């Protein structure tokens, strides 16, 4: 874990009519980059002299370069909105790598299932799986299509993906949870890694349970410290509250009390 003053190396804004908007921020942060593992995240300070927004914002590591980390993010509120103004050369305080990452399942094939910005930790994981020559497939659910340039970046890291969009503007029309069912007719995965909105994860969990498929999920919670000090980011598990920032963000889906 390091507190590093990172420099913005590149900032791409994937904006296109009718497409879901994503931003890709690449930061030079050698210490964090060299120790990060798939599924870990960083906390980025958004304001500096200004105190609104106050807290750091958590982002999964989307991919790792030699001395750099890249974050793929969507604009949600005032913090991410301010981030879009960052330009190459700007200096940013980054804390990381934080949390526990994914544990690679021992048998194949494996599936990566993402919803929206949930692709971020899975992209890093997928590139690691490729290095390790683990056979896997990726399903990504979106609301609308995305800019082809972003698709290029992701395919380069992850290989081919199966895309579902809610409006059918890219890939199959429908939800990614329908996609897993369809793909299941082709193969049974030995393990699933998932990241996305809570309703998607809940639906996936119900299905994997029926099917008897192991799943690891990367979860989100409001965070203040990111290091286990404030006890603010708990989720309810079968063994009581656990800290998403420290004992997660990746959990075995079985552990989580999904009804909460």
């Amino acid at each position, binding site marked *: 874990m390091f*507190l590093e003053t990172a420099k913005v190396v590149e900032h791409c804004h994937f904006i296109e009519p009718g497409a879901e908007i994503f931003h890709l921020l690449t930061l030079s942060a050698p210490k964090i980059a060299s120790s990060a593992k798939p599924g870990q995240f960083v906390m980025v*300070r958004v304001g500096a002299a200004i105190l609104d927004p106050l807290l750091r914002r958590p982002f999964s590591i989307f991919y790792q370069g030699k001395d750099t980390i890249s974050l793929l993010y969507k604009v949600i509120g005032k913090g991410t909105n301010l981030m879009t103004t960052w330009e190459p050369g700007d200096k940013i305080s980054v804390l990381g790598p934080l949390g526990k990452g994914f544990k690679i399942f021992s048998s194949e094939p494996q599936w990566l299932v993402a919803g929206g910005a949930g692709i971020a930790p899975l992209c890093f994981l997928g590139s690691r799986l490729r290095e390790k020559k683990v056979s896997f497939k990726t399903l990504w659910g979106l609301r609308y299509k995305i800019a082809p340039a972003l698709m290029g970046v992701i395919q380069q890291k992850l290989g081919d993906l199966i895309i579902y969009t809610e409006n059918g503007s890219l890939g199959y029309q429908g939800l990614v949870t329908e996609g897993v069912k369809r793909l299941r007719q082709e193969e049974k995965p030995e393990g699933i890694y998932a990241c996305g909105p809570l309703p998607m994860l809940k639906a996936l969990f119900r299905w994997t349970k029926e099917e008897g498929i192991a799943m690891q999920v990367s979860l989100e919670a409001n965070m203040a410290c990111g290091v286990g000090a404030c006890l603010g980011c708990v989720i309810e598990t079968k063994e009581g509250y656990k800290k998403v920032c420290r004992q997660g963000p990746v959990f075995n889906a079985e552990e989580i009390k999904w009804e909460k």
Partner: protein
Amino acid sequence: MGKVNLAVKVGRLELKNPVLVASGTFGYGEEYAQLVDLNRLGGIVVKGLSLEPKIGNPPPRLVETSCGLINAIGLENIGVERFIKEKLPFLRQFETKIIVNIFGYSFKDYAGLAAKLTAAGVNALEVNISCPNIKEGGKFFGTDPTSAAAVTKAVCEETDLPVFVKLTPQVTDIVEIAQAVIEAGADGVSMINTFPAMAVDIHTRRPKLGNITGGLSGPCLKPIALKMIWEVVRSLHIPVMGIGGIMSAADALEYLIVGAQAVQVGTANFVNPRTALEVIDGIEDYLRLHHFKDIKSIIGSVLIPK
């Protein structure tokens, strides 16, 4: 340029510098040990402990507000026994003062905590009579001078350690409460704790916190805390640890100038884990710039125009 002296004595508690980290914002110290040289801190106030472990409130426990943070942790903690066994040995390695924040639901709870921690060996106790998150007690003790004094007494009877009572800001007259706890034997007061607060998600129309309400901290509170401390110091001339929205050396200096003898950095640890260290350096720079040799020259030095 010569060295400046940063050492202060707050009641009977001697600190090598007046900058501590506040309870609940620095865990049990170990969470930040990789990032912060704990030896440099004036002191560490550990997360509030109760006799028995507490699981805390349901999530969500945090909401960010304008220049503030509302938390409803619900005083989750591992209990005093596990703290003494698992956390205290680690903390003892460092050259800094360990102050333990305690809370309970009866005078007996407080007395028991004081006795156990005194036997275990810590440097001071901070008595939380003010946590607004918890329904079962806390608030009650802190808003009434008689109960506040009684808790203080219960603690002081069980310990010879320096005792600081941590006050809630949600009272009509904080001077009255401060006076009561000092007369009951406290070395000083820590002020302020978080302010009861709430936030609502307008689209779901539900409270944003699992516990409905929580406690507000952060820079939004600083002007309120500063005013209260000034009132307490000028009325009672007692040792105060200033807390509330300290993000920088300049903020800490405001507290020292109005008369706090030490300060605690809270929410700022989350924003920049090295805040306390930067505050120490910044105070030193300030003293040099203004040609003061000793921090004590500025404590309570506010110039009130006639």
